[in-house]
């Protein structure tokens, strides 16, 4: 089998000191194969976002190693980060909040294109515009959205724009941190559909982070269950849903069932 696109080895992250010390991520390991969708599930505060930030280098790991595409990226700095961002991107929980309120959508996408994709000096304005429009089209947005500010878009539209920005680099790995949690049910379904479509057409791997086990089990090949910063269970989706081993997973599953019956 081919080499995993992302390999996380025993990473650890603590915040605070002494009495206030919190171990947000405690000895977590998992790997993602190219083109695979891995679900990372856990209740709020279980360290999911912290893991996403550690992988994307928005925060530094205390211990452990992260391998991306075979290279150890646990302690890289500066320029080396840019190289990683050319192949790994992230979509955040808060769609509108993930855009600079003073920047038009088009400008935000252009930033990614200029910094990570093309040499902006070698590219004409018209060509750049074309690239932005085609990205917007790819996520189902009309070209005029390039000239709008984030607050003029709905949550769902904004998340589409965020996905457009992320796929501008043709990433090998896309991290979605609760990318649908802030959206209403119909927008949520549309975004999921879009992500699954892009996953196939762009052949990228997705790390899908969510608190919603039902949702994750629908779309993920494998699942990793997180509880208080620790990995309690991981494996094929089917195995986990049908025969959960850890009591916490069972609890998550039963709460899903209850909600289903309640509806």
């Amino acid at each position: 089998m081919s080499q995993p696109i992302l390999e996380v080895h025993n990473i650890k992250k603590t915040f605070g000191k002494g009495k206030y010390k919190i171990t947000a991520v405690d000895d977590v390991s998992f790997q993602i194969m190219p083109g695979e969708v891995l679900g990372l599930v856990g209740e709020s505060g279980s360290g999911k976002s912290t893991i996403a930030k550690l992988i994307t280098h928005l925060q530094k790991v205390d211990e452990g190693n992260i391998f991306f595409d075979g290279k150890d990226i646990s302690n890289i700095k500066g320029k080396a980060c840019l190289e990683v961002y050319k192949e790994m991107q992230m979509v955040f929980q808060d769609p509108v909040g993930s855009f600079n309120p003073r920047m038009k959508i088009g400008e935000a996408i252009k930033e990614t294109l200029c910094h990570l994709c093309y040499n902006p000096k070698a590219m004409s304005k018209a060509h750049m515009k074309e690239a932005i429009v085609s990205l917007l089209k790819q996520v189902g947005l009309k070209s005029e959205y390039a000239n709008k500010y984030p607050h003029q878009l709905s949550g769902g539209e904004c998340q589409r724009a965020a996905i457009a920005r992320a796929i501008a680099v043709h990433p090998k790995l896309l991290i979605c941190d609760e990318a649908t949690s802030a959206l209403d049910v119909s927008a949520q379904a549309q975004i999921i559909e879009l992500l699954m479509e892009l996953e196939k057409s762009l052949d990228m791997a997705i790390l899908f982070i969510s608190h919603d086990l039902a949702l994750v089990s629908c779309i993920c090949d494998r699942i990793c269950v997180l509880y208080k910063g620790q990995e309690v269970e991981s494996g094929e989706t089917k195995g986990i849903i049908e025969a959960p081993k850890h009591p916490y997973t069972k609890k998550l599953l039963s709460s899903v069932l209850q909600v289903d019956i309640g509806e």
Partner: protein
Amino acid sequence: MDEVKILPMEEKKKRSLNFVKLRFYLLMVITIILIFISIVAPYMVPNDPYATDIRGRNLPPSQEFLFGTDSHGRCVFSRVLIGARTSISAALMLVIITFVIGTTIGIVCGYYGGWIDNLFMRIADILLAFPDIILGIAVAGIIGGGLFNAMLALGLTGWTQYARVARSNVLTMKEDTFIQAARLSGNSDLRLLFRHILPNIIGVLVVIATLQIGTMMMGIAGLSFLGLGVQVPQAEWGSMVNSGRSYLQIAPWISLFPGLVMMVTIIIFNLFGDALRDFLDPRINNSS
């Protein structure tokens, strides 16, 4: 936005948009006129602002002397005009310099933290432990009088306001999602600071700056009164107000007119600051 409003959304937006723009342009024009007047004042004065006349002391306003004359028989109107240059340009320059220095220190401290942050914030703490004017008097006393030294004395504490506000705003903003997203878009630290963070906090700083114009005008005036700022024959609004104090009962115009003009000027700058803040905010003014 969802409260009881009679106007439909679109129309309301259009109206407030026009108002914000209109107010901004109007006040900008007034401010520019004000600054223009202060620049060309020497060519506009009806009388020599420095010519004393013992027999024409404390004359009430008339055709010849629009604002009357002062205790040395000098034309108050001419002196107010010529004083505009000193007061406005000195205050503006001081505010611009402290704004740039303070903001830069503040965002660098907030963004990088560490020893740089500690160093500058402790210096700011020490400077803020003294009342502004006392520190100004002490400094101007040590390095001597004169307009430049007075400005230096006021500037010494002036930057701390911008630095503190900029720093605390950066501290909260640097955790914002859009900053993380911008980092993933390949922005450098410098671009993150000046292209993403600064435009989002500059509104608050600009409002502080415009309020500071008034404060600085008064600071310069205060030091001038104590003989530590603008030296005597030179005209300056603050010192003119003070020079008329002993004649308030018999010749109120000596203090009244420079004071009135100073007040109007400060109000205009404050209103301009407000308008600028609204104009810069895309949530209020979206020009698409």
